[in-house]
């Protein structure tokens, strides 16, 4: 026979030895696979960072042209029953190389008008974070109404109606660089949010507004620093508690818009990407202290932010 030693035993591996080797290989794969997966997430996070950086460049180009940052939303009451509404995202379109999309948008009508349906359904990569899912907001008949997005704007320290200290964005208001006396590197402009799907098993008029960039309504893309990034404290607004109680907790209310608030949330482990006023992007940890986080959201609060507290 082959490979026999002096005692007549066959040289080779026993079954047990083979099993042990297989077990060791399995352990090594189990060790390696999460590393590969987190490398993928790292790549997605870098893409996500780049997107928000592009939005920062767009905001600064907008500032060069108009002398101010783009207004948070535009809402003008024309008559008691009719108003004009224009979301934040429309102002940015020409500055993210979407001039054609901006040209297809009818600025004489509110964003919900039928002439703007096609514009609202166009996905623009720069508004989406690859770590998150892409969600469409639905019409009352269940057809697609508009695309959601992953980047919200800094709306102050508390609620939609009461930012406490002035933020870079508000209704019909975008700050100018001169007004950001805290310093542009100590004030953030935009931060991440997640796109929440239509509440499962609910009528279509029961909505989750979070992540809706094509809207002027509270708790859609207006980020408050009342609670920290990825906070376990629920958002308050037109959201749905059962969708993701761990990652996107919610206390639902449809009315009383001024009381709504929404925290910055993202799908990256440990924190969110935040665009500062100078155009830089920082990864802000979930564990940032709330006073620091709130100091970052005011444009002229006079707070001292130590660099090691970010």
């Amino acid at each position: 026979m082959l490979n026999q030693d002096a005692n007549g035993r066959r040289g080779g591996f026993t079954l047990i030895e083979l099993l042990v080797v297989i077990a060791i290989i399995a352990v090594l794969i189990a060790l390696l696979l999460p590393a590969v997966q987190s490398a993928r997430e790292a790549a997605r996070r870098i893409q996500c960072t780049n997107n928000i950086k592009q939005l920062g460049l767009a905001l600064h180009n907008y500032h060069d042209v108009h002398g101010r940052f783009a207004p948070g939303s535009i809402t003008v009451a024309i008559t008691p029953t009719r108003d004009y509404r224009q979301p934040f995202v429309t102002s940015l379109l020409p500055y993210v190389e979407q001039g054609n999309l901006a040209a297809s948008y009818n600025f004489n009508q509110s964003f919900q008008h039928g002439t703007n349906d096609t514009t609202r359904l166009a996905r623009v990569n720069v508004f989406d974070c690859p770590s998150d899912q892409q969600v469409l907001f639905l019409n009352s008949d269940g057809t697609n109404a508009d695309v959601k997005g992953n980047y919200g704007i800094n709306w102050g320290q508390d609620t939609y109606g009461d930012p406490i200290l002035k933020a870079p964005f508000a209704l019909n208001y975008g700050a100018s660089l001169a007004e950001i006396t805290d310093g542009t590197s100590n004030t953030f402009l935009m931060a991440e949010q997640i796109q929440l799907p239509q509440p499962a098993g609910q009528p279509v008029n029961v909505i989750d507004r979070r992540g809706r960039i094509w809207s002027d309504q509270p708790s859609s893309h207006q980020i408050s620093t009342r609670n920290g990034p990825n906070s376990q404290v629920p958002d308050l607004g037109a959201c749905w508690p059962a969708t993701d109680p761990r990652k996107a907790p919610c206390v639902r209310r449809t009315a009383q818009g001024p009381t709504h608030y929404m925290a910055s949330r993202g799908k990256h482990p440990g924190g969110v990407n935040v665009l500062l006023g100078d155009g830089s992007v920082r990864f802000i940890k979930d564990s940032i202290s709330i006073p620091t986080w709130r100091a970052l959201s005011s444009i002229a609060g006079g707070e001292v932010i130590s660099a090691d507290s970010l």
Partner: protein
Amino acid sequence: MLTNRTDRPRNRSLVSLAARLVPAALVVAAVVGCGDSSEPPRLPVSGKVTLDGKPLPAGQLTFVPLDGRTASVAEVRDGAFQTDGSTGPAPGRYQVEIYAVESTGKTIPSPDIPGATIEEERDLVPERYNVKSELTAEVKPDGDNAYEFALTSQAPAARKVRRR
């Protein structure tokens, strides 16, 4: 084929098996040991909520951490709430926010979907118990952590209510 094996080699292979398995087990333990142990332990809490002396029919009660990061939401049903040990707050100080709305019975146009309607709601509980809450609670590591919140819809006349 497994033939004419004496006890001695078998023992030796068992020893070598153990010698190989022990490092593997250590590696597994090291990996599993680094799991989500960062969260402080959560505790079950319970309590009662009354509005003007009557049990609050339905609402949400939120424990907002004043120190730490662990928050908790509890559903209020017929004036009572409770959480189990997996969803409750961790020991520490909390601001308590109680949200409750009721339908006014009217329907209004949806601000989100043209043509759709939603029910109009109004707040049952005043702002000083939720958005600008003055309620606090301390969750103790030992103790039954039962709370009673007696809310009034009218502000106390004696002092001006303002959180900040």
